[in-house]
């Protein structure tokens, strides 16, 4: 009895073993990824600054994904894997596609650019002005960086390049006062847009952070909706500190969106993926170079492809 039972079990086992083998040799069917490939993908995502948690989340999705194999595609190619990853990224990022330039009647529309030092605020201000000029909008650029040497001159050059009106205060004057006067000036000039460039500040400097609140508070006296957009400019080479940046700026003045710059280098700015998911903020644009038209509207699919080096 015992012998028969054992024999039966054994044949049963060998049958299923055969089945598995067959599935592998015939190759057509569904297959999951092995751990080595998963680790490789995880490494690639981490290297793009996605962060450990976000990368693990995506790899977990990948782990459960069944790849459809056909007589044409007999093995899971890297391409196939990355397509799946891309779809996952797109799911997160698609909600962040949003235009900065919706038609509005509340003029002048005030855009406040903020961020840490060197993230590219001033260059971005120039580029936004250029985009708006192409739409035949009347633009005022205001220099509220009253601290850094030659910050005003730098912005002034952008204003003249983009043929925008330029507003500045006297040296070392109060940033909020300059913003207020700039809005008064923009109203008088009947401008469509006012772009306010602020001084770079690290998000852990309380005094400088309070200055941002003051700017918002003061200009809202002229228009309760202003500033209409409060955008944090993030450096594309930034790592996980971007979380702290967005969190702190958002708590300070409730951001309306993000712009990520310097994506023409080798950095991927992957941290934006988890930022988009966590803070549900639009990504208005990406900076891809130093020229005046090197600012692209953010497209989730294009970005995901670039992040994964996909064609």
């Amino acid at each position, binding site marked *: 009895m015992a012998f028969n039972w054992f024999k039966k079990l054994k044949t049963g086992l060998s049958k299923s073993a055969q089945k598995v083998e067959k599935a592998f040799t015939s190759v057509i069917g569904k297959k999951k990824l092995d751990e080595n490939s998963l680790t490789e993908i995880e490494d690639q995502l981490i290297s793009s600054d996605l962060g*450990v948690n976000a990368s693990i989340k995506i790899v977990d999705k990948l782990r459960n994904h069944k790849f459809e194999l056909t007589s044409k595609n007999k093995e899971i190619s890297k391409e196939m894997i990355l397509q799946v990853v891309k779809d996952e990224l797109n799911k997160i990022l698609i909600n962040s596609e949003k235009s900065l330039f919706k038609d509005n009647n509340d003029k002048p529309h005030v855009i406040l650019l903020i961020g*840490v030092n060197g993230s590219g605020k001033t260059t971005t201000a120039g580029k936004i002005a250029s985009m708006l000029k192409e739409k035949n909008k009347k633009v005022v650029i205001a220099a509220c960086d009253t601290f850094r*040497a030659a910050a005003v001159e*730098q912005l002034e050059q952008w204003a003249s390049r983009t043929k925008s009106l330029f507003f500045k205060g006297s040296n070392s004057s109060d940033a909020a006062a300059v913003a207020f006067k700039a809005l008064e000036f923009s109203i008088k000039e009947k401008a469509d847009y006012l772009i306010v460039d602020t001084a770079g500040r*690290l998000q852990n400097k309380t005094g400088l952070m309070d200055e941002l609140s003051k700017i918002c508070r003061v200009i809202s006296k002229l228009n309760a909706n202003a500033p209409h957009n409060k955008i944090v400019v993030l450096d594309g080479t930034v*790592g996980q500190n971007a979380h*702290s940046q967005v969190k702190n700026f958002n708590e300070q003045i409730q951001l309306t969106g993000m712009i990520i710059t*310097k994506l023409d*280098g080798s950095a991927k700015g992957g941290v934006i993926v988890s930022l988009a998911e966590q803070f549900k903020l639009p990504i208005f644009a990406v900076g891809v170079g130093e020229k005046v038209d090197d600012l692209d509207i953010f497209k989730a699919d294009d970005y995901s492809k670039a992040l994964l080096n996909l064609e």
Partner: protein
Amino acid sequence: MFENLTNKLGKVFNSLKKRGALTEKDVDEALKDVRVALLEADVSLEVVKDFIVKVRERAVGQEVLKSVTPGQQVVKIVNDILIDALGTANSPLEINHSPPVVMLLVGLQGSGKTTTAGKLAFYLKNKEKKKVMLASLDIYRPAAREQLRLLGEQAEVLVLPDSDGESPESITKRALASSKVQGVDVLILDTAGRTTLDDIMMTEAKNIFKLSNPSETLLVADSMTGQDAVNTAKAFSEILNITGVILSRTDGDARGGAALSMRAITGKPIKFIGVSEKLEGLETFHPERAAGRILDMGDVVSLVEKAQETIAEEEAEEMMKRLSQGSFDMNDMLKQIGQLKKLGGLSGVMSMLPGIGKLQKQMEAHNFDDKVIAKQEAIIYSMTKKERTNVGLLNASRRKRIASGSGSSVHEVNRLVKQQQDMARMMKKVGKVGGMGAFKNMFSGLGGNSESNMPNGMPGSIEEMQKMMGKLPMGGGANKFSGIGLPGFSGKPSKRIK
């Protein structure tokens, strides 16, 4: 996140109450979390991988201290290796060449080159008393040259005047010529920011480098940089001979893993860190602080350090007890040698003593070096366990065996044995007579890990020290400094000082 990590480490090892050496499993468990900690601090992945391998090699087999968990012990080891990997605290600038000494600042856009150039000028002028000239080669970014000019004015140093339509290469030549004429000591060249993928701009950097032949080529990097730090470091060090790194914006709340990536890839020291927007906001780099920030497990590290100190104290106490009973054997001697080595050998201990400069020459003259310690250690290691506790066993043939086993002569073995016996006798005496206080202090000074022990433990003046040592007739008595609780190191046979 990292409070979590610390808790987690605690949890993982709560069940493991055993003491002893760290097993591979202990280490691997802890390193999983360390890996995440480093990645979250923005250390580049490939650097993390290398680092983890290094830690594993060093950590497996290390002893776990009483009252800490294996996980905590691993964290401490990681911290130590991290400090090591980050390099030394003081890497001075190469400024003592024939003037004008050229310093070239390179980096990505927005990394902080221009502000750093101003700070460097300020530093060189005020701290090094140099005549400094700033020159901007950034013809691309609007008002970049204006920015440098203003910073130069604030720092009160020379600034090369602008002229339109000039290439960076020709500005470089003009700057060199002008600084020669004006007798400038240091010329700081601020270059345009560039991305690593821009071939034209990278070629330009190479040309400027060749033209200016800088003594220092400093890569300015944002301490908030993420994984791309490794690409930046590679790209710049491939085309230029980078001599150092300056990390900007360390006054933010970034964990600053880029420091490790930059250091690992370039192999060059981090010379300065930027700590504010002001001109004086440039400081030297401190690896311990940087490591603490990257790992963010300061509590665990200080816990283990405390445990180490306690154990050293306990050991010293125990030894004192044995000594006062007159049982000072070869094992005790070995321990003492070990403690001395921990402190950086004889020269290390000596350097901590006040007023030792005079003595140092004499020490050298008397063959007073660390090789002697190594030899003594080797001799004791060549003894059997029994021999170590009972030197009475050492007959002529055993001594011969020990000598050949340790690569020394029978004469040297004899001398060591004699020293040990002298010491044992003396210890007993001291123990009986009293005067233990001072002596005990000396031991805790030797055994402890903190320098703060030293002032209490060590004699305050050279006279005091000599007096104290004079009391200790510890072999090697060719001169007054035969002691510090150690057998004599003099090259001459011992003669007791009464």
